[in-house]
């Protein structure tokens, strides 16, 4: 009899533990109860449950801790300070997959808040355990582990290097080849986070053979997967010419243009970013993009989007036009100037306007022909308005002024310069007058006008211009 009573006590205790863990996990899923949980000291109470005899209690406790750490930085720090990490990972290899998933969830929830917490995770030796999880057969465990790696590697290059040193990259490349879409997404996003910091890390990712698999996934219909894949490829390509050439050799070119027509905004943005990172390195790469019709696709993309999604496309046009005058002419011929002009007028954000002004400056600065095309599109008054406007930011004003200066120094199309004469401030006026003075066919009325201006401004420049024109 007493034996049964003794056993009954143990049974009650186990049931109580299990219920407690389950209830805390449920409460932790609701944001309003988390403060109460925190003040009740839930982290210290959950800690011994992590080493419980019963596997399901361990899993539920880990899940609850993960949800708590996910909510808030302070809770995550409390979890780390309570010394939970060693206990979480000590027995990880022998545990079943639910526990591994819950443990990976906890690690990821802690790592996402700040670099210091991620460093604490790395120092507690969790990376080896996460690699063991990545080798597991269950796709959910792999997903949790690669998500945790992604959040750790996101913060700074040292943490990325730690992730690479733990040997995660080949396993991530294997994960990308798995059939499950969610796993592919997370693995692609992790590779993107690893390779974004430095060329060496990107080189490591490339050496594991990631580019071929990423390039194969571009035509995939899933939008979120495409976002991550394009982001990963652009982070790889941005570092150096060799990496960009490797990416181009993976035959992305006509396929990437279909991404620019996708219905998802961020797919368009990431596609345009990838093209920008390739175009900015050398004229040959820009030539490749022009030859494959990329410029037309980018221009259409700019025309169809609104807001920050346009920004990479605008910068692509600027980079392509900056390399040489033939490429700039190719941009003009592909009808690149009207969308840029529309951007300048319509957009509210200053940095997008600044990018559009810079791109127009790059297009128009090469020869008189280019400047004429830019001037004919009625861009110069808009640029002048932006420059003069008091509520434009400093950066925007600087870029608008540079663009105006570059275009005006080559512009010989005088009818476009006339409207500017009335409103331009002195710093711009000198360029306009310079252009007038170079014109051999200036009419007498114009010379009178020029003289008038020169007389009002008795500085050496205008004196020089007077001298030049008479």
């Amino acid at each position, binding site marked *: 009899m007493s034996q049964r009573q003794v056993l009954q006590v143990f049974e009650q205790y*186990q049931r109580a533990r299990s219920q407690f863990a389950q209830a805390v996990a449920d409460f932790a899923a609701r944001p309003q109860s988390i403060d109460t949980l925190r003040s009740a000291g839930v982290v210290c109470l959950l800690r011994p449950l992590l080493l419980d005899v019963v596997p399901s209690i361990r899993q539920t406790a880990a899940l609850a801790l993960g949800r708590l750490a996910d909510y808030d930085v302070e809770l995550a720090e409390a979890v780390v300070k309570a010394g939970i990490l060693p206990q979480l990972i000590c027995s990880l290899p022998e545990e079943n997959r639910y526990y591994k998933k819950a443990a990976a969830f906890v690690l990821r929830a802690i790592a996402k808040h700040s670099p210091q917490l991620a460093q604490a995770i790395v120092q507690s030796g969790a990376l080896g355990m996460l690699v063991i999880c990545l080798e597991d057969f269950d796709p959910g465990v792999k997903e949790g582990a690669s998500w945790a790696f992604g959040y750790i590697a996101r913060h700074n290059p040292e943490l990325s290097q730690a992730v690479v040193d733990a040997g995660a990259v080949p396993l991530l490349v294997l994960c990308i080849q798995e059939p499950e879409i969610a796993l592919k997404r997370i693995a692609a996003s992790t590779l993107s986070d690893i390779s974004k910091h430095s060329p060496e890390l990107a080189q490591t990712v490339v050496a594991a053979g990631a580019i071929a698999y990423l390039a194969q996934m571009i035509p995939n219909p899933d939008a979120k997967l495409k976002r991550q894949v394009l982001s990963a490829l652009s982070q790889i390509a941005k570092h150096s010419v060799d990496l960009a050439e490797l990416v181009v050799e993976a035959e992305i070119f006509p396929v990437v243009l*279909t991404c*620019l027509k996708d219905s998802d905004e961020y797919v368009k943005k990431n596609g345009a970013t990838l093209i920008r990172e390739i175009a900015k390195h050398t004229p040959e790469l820009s030539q490749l993009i022009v030859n494959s*019709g990329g410029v*037309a*696709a980018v221009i259409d993309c700019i025309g169809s989007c609104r807001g920050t999604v346009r920004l990479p496309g605008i910068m692509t046009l600027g980079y392509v036009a900056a390399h040489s005058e033939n490429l700039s002419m*190719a941009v003009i011929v592909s009808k690149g100037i009207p969308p840029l002009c529309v951007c300048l007028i319509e957009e509210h954000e200053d940095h997008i306007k600044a990018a559009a002004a810079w791109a127009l400056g790059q297009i128009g600065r090469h020869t008189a022909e280019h400047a004429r095309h830019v001037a004919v599109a009625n861009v110069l008054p808009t640029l002048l308005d932006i420059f003069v406007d008091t509520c434009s930011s400093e950066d925007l004003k600087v870029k608008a002024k540079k663009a105006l200066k570059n275009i005006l120094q080559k512009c010989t199309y005088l009818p476009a310069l006339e409207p500017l004469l009335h409103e331009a401030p002195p710093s711009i006026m000198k360029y306009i007058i310079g252009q007038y003075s170079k014109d051999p066919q200036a009419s007498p009325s114009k010379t009178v006008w020029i003289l008038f201006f020169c007389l009002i401004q008795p500085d050496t420049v205008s004196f020089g211009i007077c001298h030049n024109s008479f």
Partner: protein
Amino acid sequence: MAAASCGREQGASMAALARLQERLEGLREEYFLTNRAIDEDRKRKYKAAVKIQRWFRACRVQVCLRHLTKMVILIQKWWRGYLRRKHFREIVERAYFIKKLKFYNEMAVRIQKTWRGYYVRKYIHNFYALKKYLKAVSMNNEFVRHELQEYTEMKENGEKMKDLEKKDKEKKYQARKMHYLLSTKQIPGIYNSPLRKSPDPMELLLRKSKPLTHRKQPVKSPFADELYGWPTCKEPPAFVTSLPLLPADRRKPQGPFRDPAEVLRQRYKPLEPTLRARESMYSAPGKAREPTRREEWRNPIHDNEFLPFSSYHKNYEKYEPSLFKSDKYGQGAYGTKYFREVYPKKWIADKDFETLFPSIALFEKFGKTYSSTGQIV
């Protein structure tokens, strides 16, 4: 007499002396003047003589010099002329060469100028090639734009089709559910109002659709209760639940073949994993078995852990003597060597009890014969 003469002489001489003395003053001056005149005269003459001599000597030297100079000039003239004539040819040749060179340079510059202009205009900054290239670029752009337009249209169409199909499916499902609203011969249904010329399309749909049978209990797949569904497949692995039917009029094939039904049954016998593997611990029957599992955990039949080697216990298992049998000098022999205490001092006779019957031979062997593994036979 002499004295008179002397006196006269003295008197004359005295008078001469006085006259001399008078002239003495003037004499000094005269003397001085005369000497001065003579001196000056002498100096003048000396100077004149020097002048004349100088002049003459100078003329002589000048003649000499003039002669020398004339000779020197003559020599130098002839020498220089000779040298110049010697180098004249070279100079002329050189000047001629330079002139030719300049001319050739001029002509070469002209040729290079024309050639370079031609080359650059034709090959490097070829205007027409650039124009062609730009035209090709714009044509390619048109093509790419067209293709992309087609691609978007295709995608949009695909999505629209999917939407339409979904709506269609829903409509059909609704029609199947509401099959009872179909009009009968006596009673027109709500969609078949007699005032209408032709029935409502919903009515036609109802006529076409099969009535919906009772919803079967959804077959709970053994994996339905997992926290994470089976990887990509939405359904569990397709274990065959029913045997494939053979055609009824199939003639029995000739030969030593087994009964096909038997074979199929054997071949498609469903997998029967043990209870423990078949159901997860979170499924409902699994949860129901939880108490028995806990009982098992608490009351294991076999407490000894699995020993890795057969002679494991020899080294690690130690017999622990009971507290009653151990004395000061180690374990007592009672219970192991003998089971009966013998006190000879208390014996009345000095012999032990004798056994009346002979012991059974087999029982004698007990505890004395051993097998090779150390087990008692």
